[in-house]
């Protein structure tokens, strides 16, 4: 903001990012944050519908869902959970850097966040690839011969019901991965703008709101991980 000082003297507006219909910067920030939270609530309900479907089908077809769940890799799932948690920490530190006006640190944290997000997606890609190789992808080639290992007791399951598990698995993790891709794109744009010096301690709302979005995507995974990977594992 090269002209910010001149603009400040002209209009007595301390903050060039302050829009005229807000009383002050704090009010503007609160309004933006409130709007973001309203959007996040719609996201909660959107994923909530899928969680609800998953719970109901899981109750009705427990053995098949448990057998399907046992085919997922806990190692990769746990690794991805850790990656997302670390990325949430880097996001919160990015917001802190923006608040302190440390431009290079802010860009650095954003870049690390994008890299962590991509790590998550690559690992997810390997998991999906394994599903394709095992013919665990719902569709005409779907084939499921595994049994539910109930503490050593092998219980055969209906492949149609297992297909239902993998349909929900791909719908939920796929929609979550799409949100991750959008988040990475969002942070890429913000990193470029931050590098150009668009954000000052007086105005960094986009960083904060993108951070809120990223944290919500993290929270969704925090629930997806135990529900898809962990429940009914104990061998």
């Amino acid at each position, binding site marked *: 903001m090269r002209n910010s000082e001149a603009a400040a003297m002209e209009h007595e507006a301390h903050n060039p990012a302050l829009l005229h219909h807000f009383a002050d910067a704090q009010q503007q920030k*609160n309004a933006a*944050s*409130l709007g973001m939270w309203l959007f996040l609530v719609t996201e909660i309900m959107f994923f*909530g519908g899928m969680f609800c479907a998953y719970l109901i089908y899981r109750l*009705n077809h427990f053995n098949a869902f448990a057998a399907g769940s046992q085919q997922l890799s806990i190692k990769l799932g746990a690794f991805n959970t850790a990656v997302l948690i670390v990325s949430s920490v880097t996001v*919160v530190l990015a917001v802190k850097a923006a608040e302190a006006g440390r431009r290079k640190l802010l860009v650095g944290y954003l870049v690390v966040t994008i890299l962590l997000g991509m790590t998550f997606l690559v690992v997810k890609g390997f998991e999906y690839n394994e599903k394709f190789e095992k013919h665990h992808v719902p569709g005409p080639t779907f084939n499921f011969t595994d049994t539910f290992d109930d503490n050593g007791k092998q219980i055969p399951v209906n492949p149609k019901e297992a297909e239902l598990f993998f349909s929900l698995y791909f719908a939920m993790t796929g929609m979550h991965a799409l949100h991750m891709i959008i988040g990475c794109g969002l942070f890429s744009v913000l990193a470029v703008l931050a590098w150009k010096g668009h954000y000052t301690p007086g105005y960094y709302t986009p960083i904060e709101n993108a951070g*809120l979005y990223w944290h919500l995507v993290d929270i969704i995974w925090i629930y997806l*991980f135990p529900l898809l990977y962990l429940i009914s594992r*104990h061998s």
Partner: protein
Amino acid sequence: MSEHEEHTSRSQGFYLAIGAGLLLLTATTVGAAFVNLGPFNPIIALLIATIKATLVVLFFMHVKGASEKLTGAIVVSGFFFLSILLTLSLADYLTRSWR
């Protein structure tokens, strides 16, 4: 203006500590999954997930100490409506076997 501007963020060490706590809880939930606790396996897994989500919402998303109190109401309403969706749906499906 700057005197009234509220800084909701905390120290770097605080965030790192919360992050370490979240990683620890992840390790705990993975470990608990390999122990046969019967019906308590899903309960413990979801309980730990909820603790983790609460930590993220309160401290990473700055709902605790937010300058706008309405934010808290929006967050609570979101989870309230989600709980209506889940409890009423499950109240139906869980009780169908009684017929």
